[in-house]
């Protein structure tokens, strides 16, 4: 795999996770207390650094074939789930992921909770909200960077792409101090779903002992073929959706985002 493809794949996948983490930190900081939210953010980052320090060398030491089998399987499962959700959203069968709505929900819940001091943290709720959000989304960033980097024998480049994605998204979040609603998150997730699926198919098959015709060049065919297939399925489902009675469409559109987006990482 080329260095450029590795960088782009990791950057895009990590940017999606960073957008979600930024939304949570912004909600915690605005609705509760910036000092507590920032402390939660820093604490979560410290835990993530420890996780990288512990897991990074372990991933590098794993035999490549076994690593590709496990990582390929996980990427394929994640990729298919992302793609499934992205196709359902793009075809109108599921409510769009709306950072504005998620921000409002988090903001409302944060405002309603009572304030409680804990040690040097002025507001424990704001700290916990920020800490959990950054830790969970951050673990996914770590997973993506380590597995992509480990498979491509270039963990430093994958790490650099992940750090760049997080810094870019965080900088935009700090600059606008508002949910990153203008980021085309659903389109990004569609693209990331295609890439995760393509890498999952490629590495999973290699890990299971298969040999691709053309070796690494097979990835260059897999990505457009999967993209075309996903777009074709989206078009097909759109036609089915447009053939449904208006009442059914309206009921689906009114579903709250919480119900429509039960899985955090997607």
């Amino acid at each position, binding site marked *: 795999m080329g260095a450029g493809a590795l960088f782009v794949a990791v950057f895009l996948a990590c940017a999606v996770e960073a957008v979600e983490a930024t939304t949570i930190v912004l909600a915690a900081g605005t609705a509760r207390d910036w000092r507590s939210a920032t402390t939660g953010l820093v604490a979560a980052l410290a835990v993530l650094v420890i996780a990288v320090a512990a897991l990074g060398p372990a991933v590098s030491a794993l035999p490549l074939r076994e690593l590709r089998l496990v990582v390929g399987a996980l990427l394929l499962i994640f990729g298919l789930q992302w793609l499934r959700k992205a196709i359902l959203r793009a075809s109108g069968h599921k409510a769009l992921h709306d950072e504005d709505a998620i921000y409002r929900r988090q903001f409302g819940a944060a405002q309603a909770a009572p304030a409680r001091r804990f040690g040097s943290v002025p507001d424990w709720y704001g700290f916990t909200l920020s800490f959990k959000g950054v830790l969970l989304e951050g673990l996914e960033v770590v997973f993506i960077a380590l597995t992509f980097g480990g498979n491509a024998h270039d963990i430093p480049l994958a790490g650099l792409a992940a750090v760049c994605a997080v810094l870019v998204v965080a900088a935009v979040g700090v600059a606008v101090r508002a949910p990153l609603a203008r980021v085309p998150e659903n389109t990004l997730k569609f693209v990331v779903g295609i890439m995760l699926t393509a890498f999952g198919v490629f590495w999973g098959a290699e890990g299971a002992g298969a040999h691709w015709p053309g070796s690494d060049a097979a990835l260059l065919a897999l990505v457009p073929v999967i993209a075309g297939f996903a777009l074709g399925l989206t078009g097909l489902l759109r036609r*089915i959706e447009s053939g449904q009675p208006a009442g059914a469409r309206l009921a689906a559109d009114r579903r709250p985002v919480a119900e429509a987006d039960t*899985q955090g990482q997607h």
Partner: protein
Amino acid sequence: MGRRLRAFLAFLYDFVIGDDWRIAAGVVVGLALTYAVGRAGVPAWWLLPVLLAVLLPASLWLAVRRR
């Protein structure tokens, strides 16, 4: 402790398996088939793309029908 363990297992299930367990099960079956076919000396690279072409539309179809 039991509650925390259950919560962690629920998180792990949600993280790895997600909305449709059939996708995870299908991927595991696909990888096992790829291994078995490859061991028999037959080219097996095509199996996962074929699996993808069946699994994704099937999962989407079930999701749309459930609505």
